């Protein structure tokens, strides 16, 4: 499923956060959105997963405007991994992941063996099956993040939105998470802090700066010394090895 954002503008009071952003994620592609803090990455993603309404512009899923979908129908198309907190209540890991089945259920439906199987598979994929009966709030930040990923997988959607999904994860699980989502075959749009991880896993990169798309394309063509210096304000050396690119930062 293709996701496209057309001329997305977002204003809070008088402040323009996004100034007309266009983005296309073709079916099955892994799109990375990078940019410094405050560049509008999260705001853009929140427009796509419906937490924010853009002031102008629209999001399309395969040419159908997202605003024409009900919340439930949209949740069958797009799953989200983001930073959420539980505010004082607790669920078991299994209960948490089972909530990923909610968009597929009517009010009086019960969760059947099929749903539990999907939950088990998702937990296995993220390596959390041993934690099934544990309480969610007793897990470490990284383990919680993997449970949220399992929930998104259990949602069985054609699209995945990841809002800085590798926060809290150690390097091994950062790589594991990126590999899992890449192998899911979903259309993926992810905000990513770590430029090397973005370069390693993404098919395309959008560089956001001050609410505008500053550059767009394949990682090896987007990332240059000049762009990194201009957008992030740091000096970097780029090592290229065939199609791969490694960025080393300097003071």
């Amino acid at each position, binding site marked *: 499923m293709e996701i496209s954002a057309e001329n997305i503008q977002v204003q809070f009071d008088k402040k323009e956060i996004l100034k007309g952003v266009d983005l296309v994620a073709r079916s099955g592609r892994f799109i990375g959105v990078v940019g410094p803090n405050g560049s509008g990455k999260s705001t853009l993603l929140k427009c796509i997963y*419906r937490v924010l309404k853009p002031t102008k512009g629209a999001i399309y899923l395969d040419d159908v405007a997202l605003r024409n979908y009900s919340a439930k129908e949209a949740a069958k198309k797009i799953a*989200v991994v983001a930073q959420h907190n539980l505010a004082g209540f607790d669920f078991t890991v299994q209960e948490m992941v089972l909530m990923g089945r*909610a968009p597929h*259920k009517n009010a009086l439906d019960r969760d059947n063996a099929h749903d539990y199987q999907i939950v088990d598979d998702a937990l296995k994929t993220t390596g959390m099956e041993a934690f099934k009966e544990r309480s969610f709030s007793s897990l470490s930040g990284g383990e919680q993040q993997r449970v949220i990923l399992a929930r998104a997988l259990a949602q069985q959607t054609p699209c995945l939105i990841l809002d800085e999904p590798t926060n809290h994860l150690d390097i091994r699980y950062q790589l594991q998470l990126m590999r899992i989502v890449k192998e899911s075959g979903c259309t993926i749009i992810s905000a990513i802090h770590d430029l090397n991880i973005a370069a390693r896993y993404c098919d395309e990169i959008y560089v956001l700066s001050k609410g505008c798309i500053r550059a767009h394309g394949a990682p090896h063509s987007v990332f240059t010394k000049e762009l990194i210096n201009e957008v992030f304000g740091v000096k970097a050396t780029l090592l290229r090895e065939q199609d791969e690119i490694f960025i080393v930062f300097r003071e």
Partner: protein
Amino acid sequence: MKKRINTIVLPVLVLVLGLSILLAVTIGSVQIPFTDVYKVILYELFGIGSAELATGAVHDVVWLIRLPRLVLAVGVGMALSISGVVMQSIVRNPLADPYILGVSSGSYLGAVLALLLGLGKMFGGNAVGVMAFIGAFIISLAVVALSNVGGKASAVKLLLAGTALSAVCSAFSNFIVYRANDSNRIQILVNWTMGSLGAAKWNINAVVVPIVFVCAIFFWSQFRTLNLMLLGDEAAISLGVDLYTRRILYLLVSALMVGLSVYSAGMIGFVGLIIPHAIRMIFGSDHRTLVPICALTGSIFLVWADVLCRVIIRGAELPIGILTSMIGAPIFVYLMARRKYSFGV
């Protein structure tokens, strides 16, 4: 685990509730033999036995006083504990109770207006109850309206609106009470705030209990959304539910239940806070089990609380609100002191 809760815990609780009622109906300040009590009930329910059972003191005590109270206890206990669960989800705060969004102050103002200013005379006998119900419901509507001023209502805005309107109602109530010099009626008012199931009658139960049952089943059917409410707006919308309309709907259905319990039994504290907490501790926060277990446990709790009220002081009756608070507050402190259960703070 889930399967065991549905196939074992719920039937056991239903059984305990049934036995509690059967046992509780034999207990009271007047000593009546078991067999006489059940004969009256069998006669009234199924027409078994002689017609003499339909009259006399034993019949009146059992069928017109004790049993209606117990049935009302079941309804009110269910209403308060479920709306406690629902309020905690709506405002996403484990310290919420059924009265948190101004319902207590609203119904108190209604009762004050009825008792001290004589408003609501057209409602007849239970003007205080009806006015309290109206007060509870109006303030819930007002809280919803106020929390939508300047942008959609969120959990925090609901809490703020509830607190603000609560203060307004309390101020007016206190002003009226302060200006009134009718110590008799003020005493009645004080008793009302302590709650009692003493006014229970079959015709009141016939309204209150079925509506509470329907609301209870409604909330049970909403278990998925209630779960998602605990995750917050952003996660809920990504899982397919826009909480905004659901919050308002649940708030009004809950106000209906609490309003009915205030109408029929006055203010009964701590039930709606303690029961959800205790059940959460044991069975977790998943509403597919939390809602029915709380409903049954709340009913059982209030049935026995009412029995205690009737027998704890010889020849007099302790207001049930005092008793539930006396039992509830120490349990609450105990829960707080247990390190395992931190109220999520």
